[in-house]
């Protein structure tokens, strides 16, 4: 298994680098530059700024410099959780841990590393809560629907999950705010300080994914429940709860697991919509604002970070899948 993981990680490195180079070159093609604001600086100052950031070199040279500076040069992941600046939480400093420097931001005094360190934990918390909601709502609903196919339970669960699939988050979010924050005043409409702020965004994001989880669980469970080993377990006198929890869920959750790989990366890096609607200071916002600001290093930094997470989650999913399904083998 260790060989499998090492092999896959080695295979993933070129993918992340190609993504980095492609994004860097692509965002440099956008007309306009980071220093062309409403009140552009005098040409001499603009030239100075460009040479300070190295933007006056040939694009190929810049790309290679950038790739070298983000390239991991050491591997000390435990350093991510150190608290060197004593602010009471982990620094999440990619430079201290891997020696990767994502460069400066043109619009903010915080470097790209610092921006990621500031906003990723927020997005991660939002994502983790949303993921928990999605699994806690989706799996029981899917199992209940699969146990009594074509009953009212099934229709109800399927109907609700269809609603979750079809009502976009940017409609669901404002409606939840309207009902629970503005009218009932149970929760807060925006911010990110305590549970009252955090529940609505997590719920909005969670419901959208709960719907997919429920549909996939239902499909997977239906397939497994018809198989011989379930009949064997039942005929041996195993209780219904044991049959489901111990025997059926293991196979029935396989489709959910393979969906969770790409989904988890998306959830955890945060959805721009959720973070915009609820004013959550997460990573998702930077995707959009950095593109508007032509903040080249921030665009590329966030995209590379996202791509690396996708690759890691897909790997994790592959490992979990083999663990759940002994028929598969590590290749």
């Amino acid at each position, binding site marked *: 298994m260790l060989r499998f993981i090492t092999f896959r990680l080695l295979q993933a490195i070129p993918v992340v680098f190609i993504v980095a180079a492609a994004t860097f070159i692509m965002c440099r093609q956008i007309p306009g530059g980071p220093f062309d604001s409403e009140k552009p600086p005098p040409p001499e100052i603009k030239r100075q700024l460009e040479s300070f950031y190295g933007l006056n070199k040939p694009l190929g040279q810049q790309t290679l410099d950038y790739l070298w500076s983000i390239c991991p040069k050491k591997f000390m992941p435990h350093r991510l959780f150190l608290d060197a600046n004593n602010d009471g939480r982990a620094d999440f400093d990619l430079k201290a841990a891997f020696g990767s420097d994502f460069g400066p931001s043109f619009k903010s005094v915080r470097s790209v590393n610092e921006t990621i360190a500031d906003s990723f934990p927020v997005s991660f918390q939002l994502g983790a809560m949303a993921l928990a909601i999605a699994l806690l709502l989706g799996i029981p609903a899917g199992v209940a629907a699969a146990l009594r196919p074509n009953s009212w339970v099934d229709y109800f669960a399927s109907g609700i999950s269809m609603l979750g699939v079809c009502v976009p988050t940017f409609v669901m979010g404002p*409606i939840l705010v*309207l009902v629970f924050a503005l009218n009932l005043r149970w929760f807060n409409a925006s911010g990110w300080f305590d549970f009252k702020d955090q529940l609505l965004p997590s719920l909005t994001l969670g419901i959208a994914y709960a719907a997919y989880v429920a549909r996939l669980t239902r499909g997977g469970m239906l397939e497994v429940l018809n198989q011989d080993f379930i009949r064997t377990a039942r005929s041996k006198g195993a209780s219904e709860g044991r049959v489901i929890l111990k025997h059926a869920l293991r196979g029935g959750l396989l489709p959910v697991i393979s969906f969770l790989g790409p989904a988890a990366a998306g959830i955890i890096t945060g959805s721009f919509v959720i973070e915009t609607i609820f004013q959550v200071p997460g990573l998702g916002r930077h995707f959009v604002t950095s593109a508007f600001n032509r903040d080249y290093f921030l665009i590329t930094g966030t995209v590379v970070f996202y791509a690396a997470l996708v690759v890691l989650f897909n790997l994790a999913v592959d490992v979990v899948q083999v663990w759940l399904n002994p028929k598969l083998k590590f290749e």
Partner: protein
Amino acid sequence: MNTPAAPIPNAPFVPDTAFEEAEQGTSLWKDAWARLRKNKMAVFGAGTLVFMALFCLIGPFISPYTYDAQDLNQYAKPPSAQHWFGTDKLGRDQLTRIMYGGRISLAVGICATMVSLTIGVLWGAVAGYAGGKLDTVMMRIVDILYALPFTIFVILLMVFFGRNIILLFAAIGAVEWLTMARIVRGQVQSLRKMEFIEAAIALGLSRRRIILRHMIPNVLGPVMVYTTLTIPAVMLLEAFLSFLGLGVQPPMSSWGSMIKDGAEVMEGFWWMLILPGLFLSLTLFSLNFLGDGLRDALDPKASKD
């Protein structure tokens, strides 16, 4: 008794096409159509879509208002006999704006899906048919693109090309073809190894006939199903871009931009958020039901139960 039956004199020559007609009697498509008609939700979805299309295409000709006519005396009025869906904060008729927004959604749905269909089917078919090194390289490219966050890709394209509606179609189509390419490649690859294709080759059928009569109809099912599921994804992406202010530009209306405007003032003026949201959700709902129905109808093995 023992003498073999003599050939019937003057028997009419049976052309090849007669077999084809006989075969069509129980074709995949007729079967699928029968199954689809039995699926109440799919029929409901199709009906809603037809209604929605007529509503958006014909509606603006009947409506006494235009999408950009501002009447500041009628500022932010709730639904009434005069303005069935109320007015927005510039006094524009919401019903008419929803109709125009629907046109944009439908146009994006169809055009962007066509772009993604063309790229995806060609890419997948070439990779699947060629196999070998070319296949590996082409699918690696798809893998790399999968690792890119789609939305940032579209946002970059939109910022890059300016906010042109034609380019909006192209940009969305250009990021939505990956799954299609994978599906087509998988199908083509597995079809090439199937016995009935071998049998067709053994029978000496021409390559063109094998591709047209045997390959294409078998790839068409999954492609059609996935196409119906791409349309809502594409519409959602357009609404999302317009929600961010990157898609359709004012004064033109789009469901996404109307939802954005509505969300800003929803505390006092619920109809500005709920009504466009309802239309978008209903359309996505219908398309998903139709897509599910088509999948069950065309591929009974993969059906949900």
